[in-house]
C-alpha cells in the first residue's frame, strides 16, 4: 500500500512521524531553556548521550526495564541541573553568542569525558531494541517504536502545555520567557523558574535518549550529537522565541529527514544533510525570526 507519488509507504510515513516526534521533544527541551535563559544549549546532545550510557549501565547491571528508565531519568536530570549550576548560572549575563560558544565547549568536554571513560566503542543498550519489531495496523506494517514515539511525544507535549497554561509554575515560566526582568520585578523567582525549565528540559532529553536507543543500540560518545545539530537547526528554523514554533520547527525537520531518508535512493540520501541545511539557510534569510512566528522581533532600537 503506497501513497500516490514516489515510493512513499505508510511505514515510511510513520517513521517520519516518529522521528518528528522525538525531534519535537528535543526542540521543546532546547526551546524551554532558551526561553528563560536566552541560551542555546549546544550540549543538549550530551545530555542524551548521558541518558544512553545510563541505559547501557542499566542493561549491564541487569536492572528491570522500568528501573533502567528511572536511572536514565535520574542521570540526565542530575547532569542537566549540574550544567545549569556550574555553567549556565555564571554565564547568565553574557551575550547569547558567548553562551553558545560556552555550551559548544561543554559539549566537547562531555563528549571527551565519555570517550576517556567508555572508549571509542562505547557500550551497548539493547533492552528496548525489541520495539523495532513491526506491528500490523490496518494492514500496514509499522514499527512498535513509531507508535510509541508518536504517542509519547504527543503525551509529553500535552502535559507540558497543561503545565504551562494551568499551573502557577507554568505561568511563571511563560512570564519569565516573555520578559525576564519584568517577571522578576513582579515576584517571579528567577532561580526557581530556571531550575524548572532545566529539569523539564532534562526530562525530555531522557525520553529522547530512550527513544533513540531503540534504533541505535551502540551508545558511543557521539550518541545524540547529529540529532541535536538537526534539532538546533530546526528550532531556529521554527522560531526560538516561542515554545510552539520551536516545537513545530523541530518536528518538521525530523519529519522531513524521516520521510526523505526513507524515500530517496541512497546515492541521493547521502546528500540529505546538505539539503536540510541549505533549507535552513534559506529560511533564516527569508524569515530570520523563524517560519512559524508572526511579525514582530524588529532589531532593538537605540
Amino acid at each position, binding site marked *: 500500500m503506497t501513497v500516490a507519488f514516489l515510493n512513499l509507504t505508510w511505514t515510511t510515513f510513520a517513521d517520519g512521524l516518529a522521528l518528528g516526534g522525538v525531534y519535537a521533544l528535543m526542540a521543546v527541551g532546547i526551546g524551554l531553556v532558551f526561553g528563560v535563559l536566552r541560551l*542555546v544549549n549546544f550540549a543538549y546532545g550530551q545530555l542524551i548521550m548521558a541518558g544512553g550510557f545510563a541505559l547501557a549501565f542499566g542493561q549491564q547491571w541487569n536492572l528491570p526495564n522500568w528501573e533502567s528508565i528511572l536511572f536514565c531519568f535520574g542521570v540526565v536530570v542530575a547532569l542537566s541541573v549540574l550544567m545549569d549550576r556550574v*555553567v549556565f548560572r*555564571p*554565564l547568565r549575563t*553574557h551575550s*547569547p*553568542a*558567548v553562551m*553558545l*560558544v*560556552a555550551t*559548544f*565547549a*561543554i559539549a*566537547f*568536554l562531555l*563528549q*571527551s*569525558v565519555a*570517550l*576517556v571513560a567508555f572508549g*571509542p566503542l562505547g557500550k551497548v543498550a539493547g533492552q528496548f531494541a525489541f520495539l523495532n519489531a513491526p506491528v500490523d495496523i490496518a494492514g500496514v506494517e509499522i514499527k512498535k517504536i513509531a507508535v510509541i514515539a508518536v504517542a509519547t511525544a504527543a503525551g509529553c507535549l500535552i502535559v507540558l502545555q497543561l503545565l504551562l497554561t494551568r499551573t502557577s509554575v507554568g505561568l511563571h515560566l511563560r512570564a519569565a520567557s516573555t520578559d525576564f526582568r519584568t517577571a522578576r520585578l513582579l515576584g517571579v523567582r528567577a532561580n526557581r523558574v530556571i531550575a524548572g525549565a532545566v529539569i523539564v528540559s532534562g526530562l525530555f532529553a531522557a525520553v529522547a535518549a530512550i527513544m533513540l536507543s531503540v534504533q541505535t543500540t551502540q551508545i558511543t560518545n557521539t550518541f545524540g550529537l547529529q540529532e541535536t*545539530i538537526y534539532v*538546533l*537547526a530546526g528550532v*531556529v528554523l521554527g522560531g*526560538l522565541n516561542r515554545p510552539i514554533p520551536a516545537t513545530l520547527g523541530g518536528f518538521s525537520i525530523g519529519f522531513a529527514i524521516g520521510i526523505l531518508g526513507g524515500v530517496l535512493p541512497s546515492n541521493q540520501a*547521502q*546528500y540529505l*544533510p*546538505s539539503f536540510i*541545511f*541549505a533549507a*535552513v*539557510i534559506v529560511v*533564516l*534569510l527569508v524569515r*530570520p525570526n523563524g517560519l512559524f512566528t508572526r511579525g514582530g522581533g524588529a*532589531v*532593538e*532600537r*537605540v
Partner: protein
Amino acid sequence: MLRRLPELLVPAGLVVATALIGLEVSSYLQAYFLDTLVKVAIVVALYVFIGNSGVLSFGHISFVALGAWTAGILTVPQLQKQLVMPGVSHFLLVTNVGNVASLALAAAVGLAAALAVGVPLMRLSGLAAGIATFAVLEITNNVLTYDLTLGPGLNGFSSVPSTTGMWQATIGALICVVIAFLYQRSRFGRMLRATREDPAAAAAAGISVHRQRLLAFALSGGLAGLAGGLYIHLQPLQPSGVYLDLTFITLAMLVVGGSGSLLGAVVGALAVSGLDSFLAAAVNGVDVFGWQLTLPNGTAEIVVGTLMAVVLILRPQGLTGSREFSLPRRRRTVADLEKARVPT
C-alpha cells in the same frame, strides 16, 4: 601608524620566536611546531572576521577545508591521483600546479567561497548567524565526504607533497598576521569595529553593516583558504579532519586568547596549541622531569574544553583581555593637568 607598530611586531615576533624554537628541536617535536604555526594562521583568519565584526562564525573551517582540497587535488602527482581519487572530474585529474601556485589558488578559492556564502549570510547576526554558518560547515563537510568528483571523499588524501616546512608555515602565518593588522588599521577595519560596538549607531553614521561584514568575511575566508592549503601540505587530511573538532579547537584558541585583538588570537593559538600538543604527546607517553606520563585518549579535549569554559565564565575577554600590545605611556597626573591648564 608608527606608534601602532608594536601591535604588529609583538604578534609577528611571537610567530617568529615559535619558528626559531621549532628549528632547534628534534624532527619529532618539530611536527607539533609546524601544526601550531598552521593553527595560528587559521585562528588569525577567524579573528579577522569574528574579532572585528563581533559576529560568531562556526563556518570558517569550511573555507579551510576548501583551501585544503584545492591545494591537495592540484598537487597530488597524476599517477597517484588516478589511484587515490578515481572518480575525480577530468579537469581536476589533468590539472597540476606547483606548490606556491596551489597555496595561492587555495586562498583564492577560500576568498571566492566566502564571498559567495557571505552575500546572503552577512545579513544575519547573533544566533541566526551562528546557526547559518554552522549550516555552511555541515554542507561543505557533507559534499566533500560524498562527492567523489571533487576529491578523494571519505578516505581522504594521500601522496600530497609535504612542502609545509618551517619556512612556509612561518611565512604563511606571518602573511595572515600582517594582513590582519593592515586590515584592522584600515578605514574598513575601523568601520567594521564601529558596527561591532553599536550596529545601529554605525549605520546611522553612514556605514553599510552588510558591506563591511562581507569584506571581512571574504578576507578571512581567503586567509582560511591559505591556511587550509598549508595544512594539507603538512599532513594528509580526511573530511573529518576539517570539521567539528578543528572548529572547536580553533574557536577555543580564539576565545582563550581573547577574540577582540590580534594579539589575543596569536597568544591563544600558541598557548592552546602548546597545551594541546603536549597532551596529545602525553597520550603516547612523555617523559616529564623523569616521570613517565601516559594519558588516556581524549584528555587533550577535556583539558582544552574545561579551559575554554573557565575562560568564558571568568574572563570572557580572554587571556589578553582582548587588548593589543602597546608600549607603556607615562600617565599624566592631576598635577600635570593643573600645570597645563591655561590660567583664566
